[in-house]
């Protein structure tokens, strides 16, 4: 059923698949956190991944970004298999993410946090840096400018010199987004970007995500609990429950899916 919907949609929009999750399973000592999950994210999508607590959403992100290998299944990104690659190789291919429980480099400045993620785009190495070659210096300046530009996007430019861990919770979430953008991804994975934000901030974030998608030509997959935000923002939604994909499709279709209603009403 799920595949049918995707094919229908692809025909409808004529879009290319950017990420294909094929039959991915991840077990943890007997427990199945992700069970035979398949879906396709098309270029330009804002793709929502929702589901009750413990549904396996973050595990799926961890599998996609190479932090944990899948027990079985394949991941195809831009028609290349990325299943067994290390996280930094996957990042270099253009997949960046944020973390649900915030994994900033807390003792580094806001600017440095973003500058670090420029890593894959830098050419000069240790020796050039130590010798302070013109290229290394120019590149360092470019890195700073790019980082500041991205900080401006998320509204943190004037806080660039602050230590990351001193930022407010909402600012830290936005910094994580800026840091991920610095990788220059084509696919951006956001893990509960609105957690801990008030309704105004949530609305602003929703706006920001759309703007970023358009400005940076991104494809976005986001995990989010706040259903109105997901429904309003995403053009595709996949619902996980106990590791299984129970529904996928456009928001209005998913909203009325009996399995989804059962999963949510059963919990909340």
């Amino acid at each position, binding site marked *: 059923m799920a595949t049918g919907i995707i094919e229908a949609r692809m025909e409808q929009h004529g879009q290319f698949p950017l990420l294909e999750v094929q039959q991915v399973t991840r077990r*943890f*000592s007997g427990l199945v956190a992700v069970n035979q999950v398949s879906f396709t994210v098309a270029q330009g999508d804002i793709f929502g991944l929702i589901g009750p607590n413990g549904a396996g959403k973050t595990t799926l992100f*961890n599998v996609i970004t190479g*932090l944990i290998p899948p027990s079985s299944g394949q991941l195809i990104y831009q028609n290349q298999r990325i299943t067994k690659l290390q996280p930094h190789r996957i990042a270099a291919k253009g997949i960046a993410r944020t973390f649900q429980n915030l994994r900033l480099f807390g003792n580094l400045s806001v600017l440095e946090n973003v500058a670090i993620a420029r890593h894959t785009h830098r050419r000069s190495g240790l020796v050039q840096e130590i010798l302070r070659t013109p290229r290394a210096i120019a590149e360092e300046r470019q890195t700073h400018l790019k980082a500041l530009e991205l900080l401006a996007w998320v509204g943190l430019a004037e806080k660039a010199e602050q230590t990351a861990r001193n930022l407010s919770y909402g600012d830290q979430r936005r910094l994580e987004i800026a840091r991920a953008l610095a990788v220059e991804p084509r696919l951006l994975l956001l893990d509960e970007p609105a957690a801990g934000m008030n309704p105004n901030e949530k609305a602003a974030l929703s706006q920001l995500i759309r703007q970023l998608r358009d400005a940076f030509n991104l494809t976005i997959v986001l995990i989010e609990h706040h259903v109105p935000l997901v429904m309003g923002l995403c053009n595709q939604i996949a619902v996980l429950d106990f590791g299984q994909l129970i529904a996928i499709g456009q928001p209005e279709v998913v909203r009325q899916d009996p399995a989804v209603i059962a999963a949510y009403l059963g919990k909340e």
Partner: protein
Amino acid sequence: MQASFLFNHGHHSIFTAILNGLSIGSVYAIFALGYTLVFSILGIINFAHGAIFTLGAYFSYTLTGGAFGFNGLLANASLPIHLPFLFALVLGSILAGIASVIVERLAFRPLRKRGADPLLTLVSSLGAAVVIVNVIQYLVGSEIYTFPSDIYGRLPASINFGTVERPIAIRTVQIVIFSVSALIVSILTYFINFTRFGKALQAVSEDAITASLLGINTEKFITFTFFLSGFLAGLAGTLVGSSVSIAGPYFGIAFGLKGLGVIVLGGLGNIPGAVLGGLVIGLAEAFVPADYSGYKEAIAFALLFMMLLVRPQGLLGRSVIQKV
């Protein structure tokens, strides 16, 4: 090669090697138990453990009425009492336990209260070791001290396990060491599995935060663990000192490092693992051919190294799920 080695030495020599290995291995085990107890609840390596080991040996030596040499503040002094060896062993180890509690108060607790980097604890515990070693040196110099030969009363120096024609003589001291260590390990096993303290210990080493939520008084508990750890180090120090000699204030440092090998081999923080690790390393050392005896000291470290590369959680440790 193994076979020819066995053949050349004959079976009585294998028997001797096994007994020697068990004897020294059991001392490693009780020493390492003290190490691992502290690690299991605090997650830190107490580098002062080797110094406490030394201290215990000196305490017991003093209590048996042993005199000091010509150097240091206490030159030529001795206690007017001559405790029997077993009493001195117990009392000396209790004193070592108290010393360990003092080290905990001065070098560990302030850092823990402050939530400091555990790395600092490593350094402060080594600072404590430097203090202990040099206090010993300041007081009694760096001479080698040997326990009086009559510490076991009327027991013979060695016991023949073979026949008159083919004697397999085992030094009595080895048998005493093995018996005492075996006794201590049995008592501890009982203690850990069947007492309130032991259950609490298991709970804390499983999950310190939950344990403190369950109302286990962590501070009192840590104090007692350090006492027990120091007591075991003191026992080990006295036993080794009585078997060979007390080879100066630095005597325990090398032993302390070897103890790391023991606890890593068995699994860091794993209590049965420490016993197994001790016996494995003791036996491995006992089987080093005489021609290569210079390399005996490296065995523990070579085993440690290989274990860390192959199975960092040790022989008996559970595997650690990768952090994401």
